[in-house]
Protein backbone atom coordinates (compact mmCIF):
# COMPACT_ATOMS: atom_id res chain seq x y z
CA UNK A 1 0.00 0.00 0.00
CA UNK A 2 1.09 3.58 -0.66
CA UNK A 3 4.18 2.47 -2.53
CA UNK A 4 4.67 5.79 -4.20
CA UNK A 5 4.52 7.60 -0.90
CA UNK A 6 6.76 5.18 0.97
CA UNK A 7 9.30 5.37 -1.85
CA UNK A 8 9.21 9.16 -1.74
CA UNK A 9 9.74 9.08 1.99
CA UNK A 10 12.51 6.53 1.66
CA UNK A 11 14.14 8.77 -0.90
CA UNK A 12 13.94 11.67 1.50
CA UNK A 13 15.50 9.50 4.17
CA UNK A 14 18.23 8.07 1.94
CA UNK A 15 20.43 11.02 2.69
CA UNK A 16 20.79 9.84 6.23
CA UNK A 17 22.72 6.62 6.59
CA UNK A 18 23.22 4.15 9.34
CA UNK A 19 20.70 5.48 11.80
CA UNK A 20 18.51 3.10 13.68
CA UNK A 21 16.16 5.67 15.08
CA UNK A 22 14.00 8.39 13.65
CA UNK A 23 15.20 11.74 14.90
CA UNK A 24 14.15 15.35 14.50
CA UNK A 25 17.04 15.87 12.14
CA UNK A 26 16.62 12.85 9.93
CA UNK A 27 12.89 13.15 9.38
CA UNK A 28 12.60 16.85 8.65
CA UNK A 29 12.80 16.39 4.86
CA UNK A 30 10.29 13.62 5.14
CA UNK A 31 7.85 15.78 7.05
CA UNK A 32 8.18 18.47 4.42
CA UNK A 33 7.34 15.87 1.80
CA UNK A 34 4.26 14.79 3.73
CA UNK A 35 3.16 18.37 4.19
CA UNK A 36 3.40 18.84 0.46
CA UNK A 37 1.24 15.79 -0.16
CA UNK A 38 -1.40 17.06 2.25
CA UNK A 39 -1.46 20.54 0.74
CA UNK A 40 -1.68 19.10 -2.76
CA UNK A 41 -4.67 17.11 -1.54
CA UNK A 42 -6.35 20.38 -0.38
CA UNK A 43 -5.86 19.85 3.32
CA UNK A 44 -6.03 23.26 4.95
CA UNK A 45 -2.71 24.97 5.69
CA UNK A 46 -3.17 25.08 9.46
CA UNK A 47 -4.73 21.65 9.67
CA UNK A 48 -1.78 20.19 7.74
CA UNK A 49 0.60 21.89 10.13
CA UNK A 50 -1.07 20.39 13.20
CA UNK A 51 -1.26 17.03 11.52
CA UNK A 52 2.45 17.04 10.77
CA UNK A 53 3.21 17.93 14.37
CA UNK A 54 1.21 14.94 15.51
CA UNK A 55 2.93 12.61 13.08
CA UNK A 56 6.29 13.93 14.15
CA UNK A 57 5.50 13.29 17.78
CA UNK A 58 4.53 9.71 16.99
CA UNK A 59 7.52 9.07 14.76
CA UNK A 60 10.31 10.47 16.88
CA UNK A 61 12.34 7.89 18.70
CA UNK A 62 10.76 5.03 16.78
CA UNK A 63 13.17 2.22 16.14
CA UNK A 64 13.57 1.34 12.50
CA UNK A 65 13.46 -2.41 12.41
CA UNK A 66 14.95 -4.50 9.67
CA UNK A 67 11.70 -5.84 8.26
CA UNK A 68 10.28 -2.50 7.14
CA UNK A 69 11.76 0.63 5.61
CA UNK A 70 11.51 3.95 7.41
CA UNK A 71 9.24 5.04 4.57
CA UNK A 72 6.84 2.23 5.30
CA UNK A 73 7.01 2.97 9.01
CA UNK A 74 6.16 6.64 8.62
CA UNK A 75 3.54 5.93 5.99
CA UNK A 76 1.82 3.64 8.44
CA UNK A 77 1.88 6.29 11.14
CA UNK A 78 0.35 8.84 8.76
CA UNK A 79 -2.25 6.45 7.47
CA UNK A 80 -3.36 5.38 10.94
CA UNK A 81 -3.48 8.98 12.06
CA UNK A 82 -5.62 9.91 9.05
CA UNK A 83 -8.03 7.04 9.55
CA UNK A 84 -8.42 7.96 13.18
CA UNK A 85 -9.00 11.60 12.33
CA UNK A 86 -11.55 10.66 9.69
CA UNK A 87 -13.57 8.84 12.24
CA UNK A 88 -12.70 5.23 13.03
CA UNK A 89 -15.71 3.23 11.97
CA UNK A 90 -18.52 4.49 9.82
CA UNK A 91 -21.75 5.83 11.21
CA UNK A 92 -24.95 6.16 9.25
CA UNK A 93 -27.87 8.38 10.09
CA UNK A 94 -30.19 7.81 12.96
CA UNK A 95 -33.65 6.68 11.95
CA UNK A 96 -36.31 7.37 14.48
CA UNK A 97 -38.13 4.06 15.11
CA UNK A 98 -41.29 5.65 16.53
CA UNK A 99 -41.86 9.26 15.48
CA UNK A 100 -40.94 10.90 12.18
CA UNK A 101 -37.34 11.12 11.06
CA UNK A 102 -36.56 14.57 9.72
CA UNK A 103 -33.42 15.15 7.72
CA UNK A 104 -32.34 18.68 6.86
CA UNK A 105 -29.88 19.04 3.99
CA UNK A 106 -27.73 22.19 3.89
CA UNK A 107 -24.64 23.53 2.16
CA UNK A 108 -23.04 25.93 -0.29
CA UNK A 109 -24.35 26.56 -3.80
CA UNK A 110 -23.94 23.71 -6.23
CA UNK A 111 -22.46 21.31 -3.69
CA UNK A 112 -24.92 18.55 -4.54
CA UNK A 113 -27.71 18.95 -1.98
CA UNK A 114 -30.69 18.34 -4.25
CA UNK A 115 -29.11 15.32 -5.89
CA UNK A 116 -28.14 13.90 -2.50
CA UNK A 117 -31.64 14.47 -1.12
CA UNK A 118 -33.08 12.35 -3.91
CA UNK A 119 -30.41 9.68 -3.47
CA UNK A 120 -31.12 9.45 0.24
CA UNK A 121 -34.86 9.32 -0.44
CA UNK A 122 -34.27 6.37 -2.76
CA UNK A 123 -32.12 4.61 -0.19
CA UNK A 124 -34.57 5.06 2.66
CA UNK A 125 -37.55 4.13 0.53
CA UNK A 126 -35.79 0.88 -0.26
CA UNK A 127 -35.68 0.32 3.48
CA UNK A 128 -39.45 0.53 3.54
CA UNK A 129 -39.57 4.03 4.97
CA UNK A 130 -42.43 6.27 3.87
CA UNK A 131 -40.42 9.15 2.52
CA UNK A 132 -41.40 12.69 1.59
CA UNK A 133 -39.07 15.15 -0.10
CA UNK A 134 -39.55 18.81 0.77
CA UNK A 135 -38.62 21.55 -1.70
CA UNK A 136 -37.47 24.37 0.56
CA UNK A 137 -35.23 26.02 -2.05
CA UNK A 138 -37.43 28.80 -3.30
CA UNK A 139 -34.63 30.83 -4.90
CA UNK A 140 -32.68 28.90 -7.46
CA UNK A 141 -34.40 28.97 -10.84
CA UNK A 142 -36.22 25.65 -11.36
CA UNK A 143 -35.00 24.17 -8.08
CA UNK A 144 -38.46 22.87 -7.23
CA UNK A 145 -38.87 21.46 -10.71
CA UNK A 146 -35.49 19.72 -10.37
CA UNK A 147 -36.51 18.07 -7.10
CA UNK A 148 -39.87 17.06 -8.56
CA UNK A 149 -38.19 15.34 -11.49
CA UNK A 150 -35.74 13.56 -9.22
CA UNK A 151 -38.55 12.62 -6.83
CA UNK A 152 -40.43 11.07 -9.72
CA UNK A 153 -37.36 9.08 -10.71
CA UNK A 154 -37.12 7.54 -7.25
CA UNK A 155 -40.87 7.36 -6.83
CA UNK A 156 -40.99 9.62 -3.78
CA UNK A 157 -43.53 12.45 -3.53
CA UNK A 158 -42.34 16.04 -3.29
CA UNK A 159 -43.93 18.66 -1.10
CA UNK A 160 -43.76 22.25 -2.36
CA UNK A 161 -45.68 25.49 -2.09
CA UNK A 162 -46.22 28.24 -4.57
CA UNK A 163 -45.45 30.85 -1.89
CA UNK A 164 -41.98 32.29 -1.81
CA UNK A 165 -41.31 31.56 1.83
CA UNK A 166 -38.98 28.75 2.81
CA UNK A 167 -39.93 28.88 6.47
CA UNK A 168 -43.56 28.40 5.55
CA UNK A 169 -42.68 25.47 3.29
CA UNK A 170 -40.92 23.88 6.25
CA UNK A 171 -43.75 24.36 8.73
CA UNK A 172 -46.47 23.32 6.28
CA UNK A 173 -44.54 20.20 5.37
CA UNK A 174 -44.70 19.09 9.00
CA UNK A 175 -48.49 19.31 8.97
CA UNK A 176 -48.63 17.46 5.68
CA UNK A 177 -46.52 14.65 7.07
CA UNK A 178 -48.87 14.14 9.97
CA UNK A 179 -51.92 14.13 7.71
CA UNK A 180 -50.50 11.73 5.19
CA UNK A 181 -48.60 9.43 7.49
CA UNK A 182 -45.07 9.75 6.16
CA UNK A 183 -42.36 8.68 8.57
CA UNK A 184 -39.33 10.20 6.89
CA UNK A 185 -38.85 13.76 5.71
CA UNK A 186 -35.93 14.98 3.64
CA UNK A 187 -35.76 18.75 3.34
CA UNK A 188 -33.72 20.18 0.46
CA UNK A 189 -32.67 23.76 1.12
CA UNK A 190 -31.23 26.48 -1.09
CA UNK A 191 -27.48 26.78 -1.53
CA UNK A 192 -26.12 29.64 0.51
CA UNK A 193 -22.85 31.28 1.33
CA UNK A 194 -21.73 31.18 4.93
CA UNK A 195 -21.18 34.96 4.83
CA UNK A 196 -24.75 35.69 3.77
CA UNK A 197 -26.32 36.65 7.08
CA UNK A 198 -29.91 36.72 5.91
CA UNK A 199 -29.68 33.33 4.30
CA UNK A 200 -27.87 31.84 7.26
CA UNK A 201 -30.61 33.17 9.50
CA UNK A 202 -33.17 31.51 7.26
CA UNK A 203 -31.58 28.09 7.56
CA UNK A 204 -31.27 28.50 11.33
CA UNK A 205 -34.98 29.35 11.45
CA UNK A 206 -35.88 26.33 9.34
CA UNK A 207 -33.93 24.15 11.71
CA UNK A 208 -35.74 25.70 14.66
CA UNK A 209 -39.11 25.06 12.99
CA UNK A 210 -38.61 21.44 11.95
CA UNK A 211 -36.29 20.27 14.75
CA UNK A 212 -34.58 17.74 12.53
CA UNK A 213 -33.40 14.33 13.63
CA UNK A 214 -30.29 14.92 11.53
CA UNK A 215 -28.86 17.95 9.78
CA UNK A 216 -26.43 17.04 7.02
CA UNK A 217 -23.85 19.38 5.50
CA UNK A 218 -23.10 18.56 1.86
CA UNK A 219 -19.64 19.49 0.68
CA UNK A 220 -18.04 19.20 -2.74
CA UNK A 221 -14.95 16.99 -2.56
CA UNK A 222 -13.16 19.37 -4.94
CA UNK A 223 -13.30 22.16 -2.35
CA UNK A 224 -10.01 23.79 -1.46
CA UNK A 225 -8.67 25.71 1.50
CA UNK A 226 -11.89 27.64 2.15
CA UNK A 227 -13.66 24.47 3.32
CA UNK A 228 -12.71 25.26 6.91
CA UNK A 229 -14.40 28.66 6.79
CA UNK A 230 -17.69 27.52 5.34
CA UNK A 231 -17.88 24.37 7.46
CA UNK A 232 -17.15 26.29 10.63
CA UNK A 233 -19.80 28.91 9.87
CA UNK A 234 -22.45 26.34 8.94
CA UNK A 235 -21.65 24.37 12.05
CA UNK A 236 -21.98 27.45 14.23
CA UNK A 237 -25.32 28.28 12.65
CA UNK A 238 -27.02 24.88 12.42
CA UNK A 239 -24.75 22.60 14.47
CA UNK A 240 -24.95 19.88 11.84
CA UNK A 241 -24.76 16.18 12.72
CA UNK A 242 -22.86 14.86 9.77
CA UNK A 243 -21.12 15.54 6.51
CA UNK A 244 -21.86 14.31 3.00
CA UNK A 245 -18.88 14.30 0.67
CA UNK A 246 -20.09 14.77 -2.89
CA UNK A 247 -18.66 14.30 -6.39
CA UNK A 248 -16.13 11.78 -5.21
CA UNK A 249 -16.36 10.15 -8.63
CA UNK A 250 -14.02 12.92 -9.79
CA UNK A 251 -10.30 12.75 -9.24
CA UNK A 252 -9.95 15.31 -6.46
CA UNK A 253 -8.05 13.91 -3.50
CA UNK A 254 -10.69 15.11 -1.06
CA UNK A 255 -8.40 16.61 1.55
CA UNK A 256 -11.12 19.13 2.42
CA UNK A 257 -12.77 16.30 4.35
CA UNK A 258 -9.80 16.21 6.71
CA UNK A 259 -9.93 19.94 7.20
CA UNK A 260 -13.62 19.86 7.99
CA UNK A 261 -13.29 16.85 10.24
CA UNK A 262 -10.62 18.56 12.27
CA UNK A 263 -12.33 21.92 12.62
CA UNK A 264 -15.86 20.75 13.37
CA UNK A 265 -15.31 17.20 14.59
CA UNK A 266 -18.46 15.84 12.94
CA UNK A 267 -18.55 12.46 11.20
CA UNK A 268 -18.70 11.98 7.47
CA UNK A 269 -21.82 9.91 6.88
CA UNK A 270 -22.20 9.54 3.14
CA UNK A 271 -20.23 9.72 -0.03
CA UNK A 272 -22.00 10.86 -3.16
CA UNK A 273 -20.16 9.53 -6.16
CA UNK A 274 -22.01 10.10 -9.36
CA UNK A 275 -24.93 11.85 -10.99
CA UNK A 276 -27.06 8.72 -10.99
CA UNK A 277 -29.41 8.32 -8.08
CA UNK A 278 -27.95 5.00 -7.00
CA UNK A 279 -24.50 6.57 -6.62
CA UNK A 280 -24.53 6.88 -2.85
CA UNK A 281 -22.21 5.12 -0.43
CA UNK A 282 -21.61 5.07 3.26
CA UNK A 283 -18.28 6.52 4.24
CA UNK A 284 -15.17 4.47 4.83
CA UNK A 285 -12.34 6.41 6.49
CA UNK A 286 -9.69 3.99 5.25
CA UNK A 287 -10.69 4.50 1.62
CA UNK A 288 -10.46 8.25 1.87
CA UNK A 289 -7.16 8.07 3.75
CA UNK A 290 -5.79 5.93 0.94
CA UNK A 291 -7.10 8.32 -1.65
CA UNK A 292 -5.48 11.31 0.00
CA UNK A 293 -2.15 9.55 0.28
CA UNK A 294 -2.33 8.35 -3.32
CA UNK A 295 -3.14 4.64 -2.90
Amino acid sequence: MFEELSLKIDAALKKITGQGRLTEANISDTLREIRRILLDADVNYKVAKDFIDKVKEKALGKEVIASITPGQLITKIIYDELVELLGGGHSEIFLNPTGATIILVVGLQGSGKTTFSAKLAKRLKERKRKVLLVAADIYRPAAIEQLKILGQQVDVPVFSLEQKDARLVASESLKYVKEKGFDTLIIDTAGRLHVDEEMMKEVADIKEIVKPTETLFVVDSMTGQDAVNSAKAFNETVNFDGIVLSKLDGDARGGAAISIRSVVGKPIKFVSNGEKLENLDVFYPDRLASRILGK
Partner: protein
Amino acid sequence: TGKAQIDDNTLDQIEEILITSDIGAETAEMIIDNLRKALKSEKDRSVENVLRLIKIELSKILIDSNNKSQSFIKPYIIVVVGVNGVGKTTSIGKLAYNYKNLGYKVIVGAADTFRAAANEQLEIWAKLAGVEIINSNKGADPSSVVFETIKRAVDENYDIVLIDTAGRLHNKTNLMNELSKIKKVIKKFSDSAPHETLLVVDGTTGQNALIQAIEFSKVIELTGLIITKLDGTAKGGMVFQISKKLKIPIKYIGVGEGIEDLQEFDKETFISALFELK
Protein backbone atom coordinates in the same frame (compact mmCIF):
# COMPACT_ATOMS: atom_id res chain seq x y z
CA THR B 1 19.82 36.34 9.92
CA GLY B 2 21.79 39.17 8.40
CA LYS B 3 20.56 42.42 6.97
CA ALA B 4 20.09 40.97 3.52
CA GLN B 5 17.55 38.50 4.82
CA ILE B 6 13.87 39.14 5.21
CA ASP B 7 12.70 37.50 8.37
CA ASP B 8 11.24 34.03 8.12
CA ASN B 9 8.15 35.04 9.98
CA THR B 10 7.11 37.42 7.22
CA LEU B 11 7.79 34.81 4.58
CA ASP B 12 5.77 32.25 6.52
CA GLN B 13 2.88 34.65 6.68
CA ILE B 14 3.09 35.26 2.97
CA GLU B 15 3.23 31.55 2.35
CA GLU B 16 0.13 31.06 4.47
CA ILE B 17 -1.77 33.75 2.58
CA LEU B 18 -0.80 32.25 -0.75
CA ILE B 19 -1.53 28.66 0.16
CA THR B 20 -4.84 29.41 1.84
CA SER B 21 -5.89 31.16 -1.37
CA ASP B 22 -5.52 27.77 -3.15
CA ILE B 23 -2.52 28.86 -5.16
CA GLY B 24 -0.88 25.49 -4.53
CA ALA B 25 2.30 24.60 -2.66
CA GLU B 26 4.52 24.51 -5.73
CA THR B 27 3.42 27.88 -7.09
CA ALA B 28 3.66 29.42 -3.63
CA GLU B 29 7.21 28.14 -3.37
CA MET B 30 8.11 29.54 -6.76
CA ILE B 31 6.68 32.94 -5.92
CA ILE B 32 8.48 33.10 -2.61
CA ASP B 33 11.75 32.13 -4.27
CA ASN B 34 11.27 34.90 -6.79
CA LEU B 35 10.44 37.30 -4.01
CA ARG B 36 13.64 36.39 -2.21
CA LYS B 37 15.59 37.10 -5.37
CA ALA B 38 13.82 40.39 -5.96
CA LEU B 39 14.50 41.42 -2.39
CA LYS B 40 18.24 40.99 -2.84
CA SER B 41 18.44 44.22 -4.76
CA GLU B 42 16.03 46.06 -2.47
CA LYS B 43 17.04 48.21 0.47
CA ASP B 44 13.50 48.74 1.65
CA ARG B 45 12.25 45.65 3.44
CA SER B 46 9.15 47.19 4.96
CA VAL B 47 5.96 45.17 4.86
CA GLU B 48 4.56 47.61 2.29
CA ASN B 49 7.43 47.11 -0.05
CA VAL B 50 7.41 43.34 0.35
CA LEU B 51 3.71 43.38 -0.48
CA ARG B 52 4.35 45.55 -3.51
CA LEU B 53 6.99 43.13 -4.76
CA ILE B 54 4.88 40.06 -4.23
CA LYS B 55 2.01 41.63 -6.11
CA ILE B 56 4.37 42.22 -9.00
CA GLU B 57 5.38 38.56 -8.94
CA LEU B 58 1.74 37.46 -8.89
CA SER B 59 0.87 39.86 -11.65
CA LYS B 60 3.54 38.37 -13.91
CA ILE B 61 1.82 35.00 -13.76
CA LEU B 62 -1.70 36.04 -14.69
CA ILE B 63 -2.40 36.36 -18.39
CA ASP B 64 -3.99 39.66 -19.33
CA SER B 65 -7.47 39.24 -20.66
CA ASN B 66 -8.53 41.15 -23.69
CA ASN B 67 -12.24 41.22 -23.18
CA LYS B 68 -12.95 43.54 -26.04
CA SER B 69 -12.88 41.68 -29.30
CA GLN B 70 -13.52 44.45 -31.83
CA SER B 71 -14.29 42.76 -35.11
CA PHE B 72 -17.36 40.72 -34.54
CA ILE B 73 -18.13 37.61 -36.49
CA LYS B 74 -21.82 36.99 -36.79
CA PRO B 75 -23.16 34.93 -35.16
CA TYR B 76 -20.54 35.07 -32.44
CA ILE B 77 -20.63 31.65 -30.80
CA ILE B 78 -19.78 31.20 -27.13
CA VAL B 79 -19.71 27.79 -25.47
CA VAL B 80 -19.67 27.43 -21.71
CA VAL B 81 -18.20 24.29 -20.16
CA GLY B 82 -17.13 22.97 -16.77
CA VAL B 83 -17.60 20.34 -14.09
CA ASN B 84 -20.86 19.90 -12.18
CA GLY B 85 -22.45 22.72 -10.25
CA VAL B 86 -19.81 25.40 -10.83
CA GLY B 87 -22.20 28.02 -12.21
CA LYS B 88 -22.36 27.51 -15.98
CA THR B 89 -26.08 28.06 -16.44
CA THR B 90 -26.16 31.04 -14.08
CA SER B 91 -23.19 32.61 -15.86
CA ILE B 92 -24.93 32.14 -19.21
CA GLY B 93 -27.95 33.97 -17.84
CA LYS B 94 -25.71 36.84 -16.72
CA LEU B 95 -23.79 36.93 -20.02
CA ALA B 96 -27.01 36.91 -22.03
CA TYR B 97 -28.27 39.82 -19.97
CA ASN B 98 -25.05 41.78 -20.44
CA TYR B 99 -24.93 41.25 -24.20
CA LYS B 100 -28.58 42.08 -24.52
CA ASN B 101 -28.00 45.33 -22.63
CA LEU B 102 -25.21 46.18 -25.04
CA GLY B 103 -27.81 46.03 -27.78
CA TYR B 104 -27.06 42.65 -29.28
CA LYS B 105 -29.58 40.10 -30.46
CA VAL B 106 -28.92 37.07 -28.26
CA ILE B 107 -29.99 33.44 -28.36
CA VAL B 108 -29.16 30.71 -25.86
CA GLY B 109 -29.12 26.99 -26.51
CA ALA B 110 -30.06 24.52 -23.76
CA ALA B 111 -27.58 21.79 -24.63
CA ASP B 112 -27.63 20.35 -21.13
CA THR B 113 -30.10 17.60 -21.86
CA PHE B 114 -29.01 15.56 -18.87
CA ARG B 115 -29.47 17.36 -15.56
CA ALA B 116 -32.97 17.37 -14.10
CA ALA B 117 -34.69 20.68 -14.95
CA ALA B 118 -31.60 22.11 -16.64
CA ASN B 119 -33.76 23.33 -19.50
CA GLU B 120 -36.34 24.89 -17.17
CA GLN B 121 -33.55 26.65 -15.27
CA LEU B 122 -32.06 28.16 -18.43
CA GLU B 123 -35.52 29.08 -19.65
CA ILE B 124 -36.07 31.18 -16.52
CA TRP B 125 -32.73 32.91 -17.06
CA ALA B 126 -33.51 33.55 -20.72
CA LYS B 127 -36.79 35.13 -19.75
CA LEU B 128 -35.11 37.29 -17.09
CA ALA B 129 -32.49 38.42 -19.58
CA GLY B 130 -35.08 38.93 -22.28
CA VAL B 131 -33.40 36.70 -24.84
CA GLU B 132 -34.47 33.86 -27.11
CA ILE B 133 -33.91 30.21 -26.16
CA ILE B 134 -33.78 26.93 -28.02
CA ASN B 135 -35.24 24.43 -25.62
CA SER B 136 -34.41 20.79 -25.36
CA ASN B 137 -35.99 17.68 -24.01
CA LYS B 138 -34.30 15.57 -21.40
CA GLY B 139 -32.26 12.86 -23.02
CA ALA B 140 -32.10 14.60 -26.41
CA ASP B 141 -28.81 14.70 -28.28
CA PRO B 142 -26.97 17.83 -27.10
CA SER B 143 -25.24 18.33 -30.43
CA SER B 144 -28.56 18.49 -32.21
CA VAL B 145 -29.67 21.26 -29.83
CA VAL B 146 -26.44 23.08 -30.63
CA PHE B 147 -27.07 22.64 -34.33
CA GLU B 148 -30.60 23.92 -34.07
CA THR B 149 -29.54 26.95 -32.02
CA ILE B 150 -26.84 28.04 -34.42
CA LYS B 151 -29.00 27.41 -37.46
CA ARG B 152 -31.69 29.61 -36.00
CA ALA B 153 -29.08 32.27 -35.22
CA VAL B 154 -27.81 32.23 -38.80
CA ASP B 155 -31.30 32.21 -40.35
CA GLU B 156 -32.63 34.98 -38.14
CA ASN B 157 -29.57 37.14 -37.96
CA TYR B 158 -28.66 36.81 -34.28
CA ASP B 159 -25.45 38.44 -33.03
CA ILE B 160 -24.58 36.21 -30.10
CA VAL B 161 -25.09 32.51 -29.47
CA LEU B 162 -24.56 31.20 -25.96
CA ILE B 163 -24.44 27.43 -25.54
CA ASP B 164 -25.06 25.93 -22.10
CA THR B 165 -23.62 22.46 -21.63
CA ALA B 166 -24.13 19.78 -19.01
CA GLY B 167 -21.76 19.65 -16.07
CA ARG B 168 -19.23 16.91 -16.64
CA LEU B 169 -16.31 15.67 -14.65
CA HIS B 170 -13.17 15.76 -16.75
CA ASN B 171 -12.33 12.14 -15.91
CA LYS B 172 -15.47 10.81 -17.60
CA THR B 173 -14.44 9.84 -21.09
CA ASN B 174 -17.91 9.42 -22.58
CA LEU B 175 -19.00 12.87 -21.45
CA MET B 176 -15.80 14.45 -22.71
CA ASN B 177 -16.34 12.74 -26.08
CA GLU B 178 -19.81 14.24 -26.18
CA LEU B 179 -18.20 17.65 -25.80
CA SER B 180 -15.91 17.03 -28.70
CA LYS B 181 -18.95 16.09 -30.76
CA ILE B 182 -20.53 19.43 -29.86
CA LYS B 183 -17.38 21.16 -31.04
CA LYS B 184 -17.53 19.34 -34.38
CA VAL B 185 -21.11 20.43 -34.94
CA ILE B 186 -20.16 24.05 -34.28
CA LYS B 187 -17.22 23.83 -36.68
CA LYS B 188 -19.62 22.84 -39.44
CA PHE B 189 -20.94 26.39 -39.40
CA SER B 190 -17.62 28.14 -39.30
CA ASP B 191 -14.07 26.99 -38.89
CA SER B 192 -13.32 29.91 -36.58
CA ALA B 193 -16.15 28.91 -34.25
CA PRO B 194 -16.63 28.57 -31.37
CA HIS B 195 -15.29 32.10 -31.01
CA GLU B 196 -15.10 31.72 -27.30
CA THR B 197 -15.05 28.65 -25.12
CA LEU B 198 -15.28 29.60 -21.49
CA LEU B 199 -14.40 27.20 -18.72
CA VAL B 200 -16.30 27.94 -15.54
CA VAL B 201 -14.36 27.20 -12.37
CA ASP B 202 -15.95 27.35 -8.94
CA GLY B 203 -13.93 29.82 -6.90
CA THR B 204 -14.00 27.51 -3.92
CA THR B 205 -12.23 24.72 -5.82
CA GLY B 206 -8.81 23.60 -4.69
CA GLN B 207 -6.01 21.89 -6.55
CA ASN B 208 -8.35 19.92 -8.79
CA ALA B 209 -9.04 23.07 -10.82
CA LEU B 210 -5.78 22.72 -12.72
CA ILE B 211 -6.57 19.17 -13.82
CA GLN B 212 -10.02 20.33 -14.87
CA ALA B 213 -8.53 23.04 -17.06
CA ILE B 214 -5.93 20.70 -18.54
CA GLU B 215 -8.44 17.98 -19.37
CA PHE B 216 -11.07 20.31 -20.82
CA SER B 217 -8.49 22.06 -22.96
CA LYS B 218 -7.49 18.72 -24.45
CA VAL B 219 -10.98 18.36 -25.84
CA ILE B 220 -11.92 21.92 -26.73
CA GLU B 221 -9.68 24.96 -27.02
CA LEU B 222 -10.38 27.18 -24.03
CA THR B 223 -10.29 30.93 -24.65
CA GLY B 224 -11.08 32.11 -21.16
CA LEU B 225 -12.10 31.35 -17.61
CA ILE B 226 -15.03 32.43 -15.49
CA ILE B 227 -14.33 32.17 -11.78
CA THR B 228 -17.58 32.02 -9.81
CA LYS B 229 -18.69 32.34 -6.21
CA LEU B 230 -16.08 34.92 -5.31
CA ASP B 231 -18.69 36.65 -3.16
CA GLY B 232 -17.76 34.24 -0.36
CA THR B 233 -14.45 33.99 1.46
CA ALA B 234 -12.64 31.86 -1.13
CA LYS B 235 -9.94 33.73 -3.03
CA GLY B 236 -9.71 31.75 -6.25
CA GLY B 237 -5.94 31.40 -6.08
CA MET B 238 -5.91 28.27 -8.22
CA VAL B 239 -6.15 30.44 -11.33
CA PHE B 240 -2.47 31.22 -10.98
CA GLN B 241 -1.56 27.63 -11.71
CA ILE B 242 -3.99 27.47 -14.60
CA SER B 243 -2.59 30.67 -16.01
CA LYS B 244 0.98 29.54 -15.53
CA LYS B 245 0.43 26.19 -17.16
CA LEU B 246 -2.14 26.91 -19.87
CA LYS B 247 -1.93 30.65 -20.49
CA ILE B 248 -5.69 31.06 -20.42
CA PRO B 249 -6.95 34.50 -19.39
CA ILE B 250 -9.66 35.02 -16.79
CA LYS B 251 -12.51 36.85 -18.48
CA TYR B 252 -15.14 37.21 -15.81
CA ILE B 253 -15.79 36.64 -12.16
CA GLY B 254 -19.11 35.66 -10.61
CA VAL B 255 -19.95 37.53 -7.42
CA GLY B 256 -23.49 36.49 -6.65
CA GLU B 257 -26.62 34.73 -7.80
CA GLY B 258 -28.26 37.78 -9.34
CA ILE B 259 -28.35 38.58 -13.03
CA GLU B 260 -26.01 41.55 -12.59
CA ASP B 261 -23.44 39.62 -10.59
CA LEU B 262 -20.92 39.01 -13.34
CA GLN B 263 -17.93 41.30 -13.53
CA GLU B 264 -15.14 41.69 -16.01
CA PHE B 265 -11.95 40.42 -14.52
CA ASP B 266 -9.59 43.01 -13.12
CA LYS B 267 -6.14 41.71 -12.35
CA GLU B 268 -5.09 44.32 -9.80
CA THR B 269 -8.28 44.07 -7.78
CA PHE B 270 -8.12 40.28 -7.84
CA ILE B 271 -4.53 40.22 -6.61
CA SER B 272 -5.17 42.83 -3.93
CA ALA B 273 -8.11 40.79 -2.65
CA LEU B 274 -5.76 37.92 -1.84
CA PHE B 275 -4.28 40.06 0.91
CA GLU B 276 -7.54 41.35 2.30
CA LEU B 277 -9.48 39.77 5.09
CA LYS B 278 -13.12 39.23 4.26
